[in-house]
C-alpha cells in the first residue's frame, strides 16, 4: 500500500503544482486584463488568449496526473498494478518534470502575458507579438510534460 501512495503522491504533485502555477499566472494576466477592459472593453478579444495562455500548465499537470492513474490501473478497464518500491519511486519522479516546470513557467508566463496585456493596451496592433513572447515561456512547460509522458510510459510494471 505504501508503494501505491508514493506513486499517487507523484500524480498529485503534477496536478497541484502545475495547477498552482497556472492559477497564479492566469490571476496576474487576468488582473491586468481587467484593468485594461475597465477603460477599454473592446479589447476583450485581443486579451483573451493572453489571459488563457498561463492556464495550459494546469492542463498539462492534469493530463499527466490522469495518465499516471491510468498506468497504475486506478481508472479505466485494466487491473490495478501491484508496484514494487523502486517502481513506485520511478512513477513519483516521472511526475516531477511537469510539476516543477509547470509551476515555475506558469508564474513567469503570467508576468509575460500581463506585460503583453499592457503592451496591447498601448499598441493594440502588437498583441500578436505579445502572444509570441508568452509562447516562448510555454515551450518549457511542454518540454516538462513530454519528459513526464515518456518516463511514465517507459516504466515496466
Amino acid at each position: 500500500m505504501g508503494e501505491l501512495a508514493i506513486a499517487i503522491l507523484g500524480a498529485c504533485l503534477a496536478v497541484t503544482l502545475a495547477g498552482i502555477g497556472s492559477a497564479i499566472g492566469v490571476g496576474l494576466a487576468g488582473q491586468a486584463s481587467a484593468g485594461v477592459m475597465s477603460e477599454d472593453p473592446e479589447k476583450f478579444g485581443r486579451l483573451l488568449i493572453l489571459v488563457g495562455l498561463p492556464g495550459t500548465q494546469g492542463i498539462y499537470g492534469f493530463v499527466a496526473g490522469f495518465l499516471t492513474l491510468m498506468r497504475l490501473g486506478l481508472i479505466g478497464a485494466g487491473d490495478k498494478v501491484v508496484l514494487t518500491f523502486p517502481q513506485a519511486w520511478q512513477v513519483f519522479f516521472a511526475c516531477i518534470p511537469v510539476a516543477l516546470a509547470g509551476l515555475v513557467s506558469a508564474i513567469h508566463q503570467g508576468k509575460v502575458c500581463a506585460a503583453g496585456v499592457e503592451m496591447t493596451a498601448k499598441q493594440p496592433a502588437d498583441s500578436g507579438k505579445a502572444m509570441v513572447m508568452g509562447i516562448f515561456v510555454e515551450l518549457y512547460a511542454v518540454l516538462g510534460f513530454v519528459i513526464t509522458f515518456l518516463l511514465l510510459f517507459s516504466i515496466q510494471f
Partner: protein
Amino acid sequence: MIRLKSTIRNPQSTFVEDKRYAYATAYIRVLENKLLSDQIMSQLLEAEDEESLFRILQGGEYGVGSVEALEEKCREELIGVISLVKQLSLEMPLTQLLTMKYDFYNFKVLLKAKYFSKDVELHLFDCGNLDVKEIKYAVTEGKMRALPEGFADAVRKAETEFEKTEELSAIDVVLDREFVNTFYRVSSEYGKRFFIEYLELFADLSNIKIFFRVHNQGKDRNFLERVLFDHGSLDKKAFFKPVEEFASGLHTDFSHLVRESLDYWKTDGTSAGFERLADEYLFQFLKSTKHIVFGPEVLFAYLMIKENELKSIRTIVSGKINGVPVDMIRERIPLPS
C-alpha cells in the same frame, strides 16, 4: 566641484515589481494612450485664433467652446484623475504621496484667506487626503489639534513666519518646504526607492530654479538659505557661489541643463530657460515608469504627467487669447515626451 551625495538616478534598476498593482498599472496604461500628444500641443501653439484652438481640442476630452468652460473642464479632469489614482492606490503612504500636494495647496489658500478675510471656497481642491471642511475649521478657528501630525506643525510654522515677516510669500515658502519634508518622510517610511529619488531630484532642480530666481532678484544669502529645500543631493553651500562658478562646478547627471540655460539666463535675465529644461528632465524621470509591469510608481507618474497636460493646455489657451508670443508660451510648456 559639486557632486551628488549618492549616485542614484537610475530608476530602472530600483523598480521592484508589486503584483498587487497589476490591475491599476494596466488601467493607467490605457489612460496614458489618451494623453495629448506633442503634435496636438504644437498645433495648439500654432493655432491662429481662438476658434482654431477650440477646434483642435474638439473630439478629445477637452471639447468645450469657451475659456471659462475649459477652465472648469480642466478642474473637473484633475479632480477626476486624483480620485481615480486614490481609488487605485492600495496603501495609505501611496495615497498620501499622491495627494499631499493638494492638501498643502489648500493650507496655503486657507491661510492667505484667513489673513485677508476672503471667501476662498471656490479655490479649494476637495481631492486631497484631508477633508477640506476639517482643515478649513482647523485653520480658520486655530484648532490645530484636529490636523494630523506634521500638518499642524507646518501650518503653525507658516503662521509664525508670516507674522514675523508680514510677507504673503512667506506662507508659500514655509509650506513648500514643509511639503518637501513631509513627502520625504512619507516616502522614506513607504520604502519605495522611486519616490525618494523623485523627491531628491525635485528638490535639486527646484533649488537650482530658486538659485537663478534669487540671483535675478538680487536677494541676499540669508533669503536664499531660508527658501532652499532640504533633501536634495546637492550640497547647499554650492548655491552661495556666483552663477557661472556654480554652473562650471556642477558635476551631476543634470549639470548640462544648467550650462545649456546659462546663455539664456545671461541674455534674457530670467530662469525660464532652465525651468523648462528642468521640468522636462523631471518628466523624463517619471516616464521611466514605462518599464514597470506592476507597481504604484505608475500611478504617481501618470498623475504628474496628466497634471502637466492640464497646466499646459490652460497656459497655451490663456496665452494665445491674451496675445502672448508663441515662443514665450513654448518656454513655459515642458513636453514630457
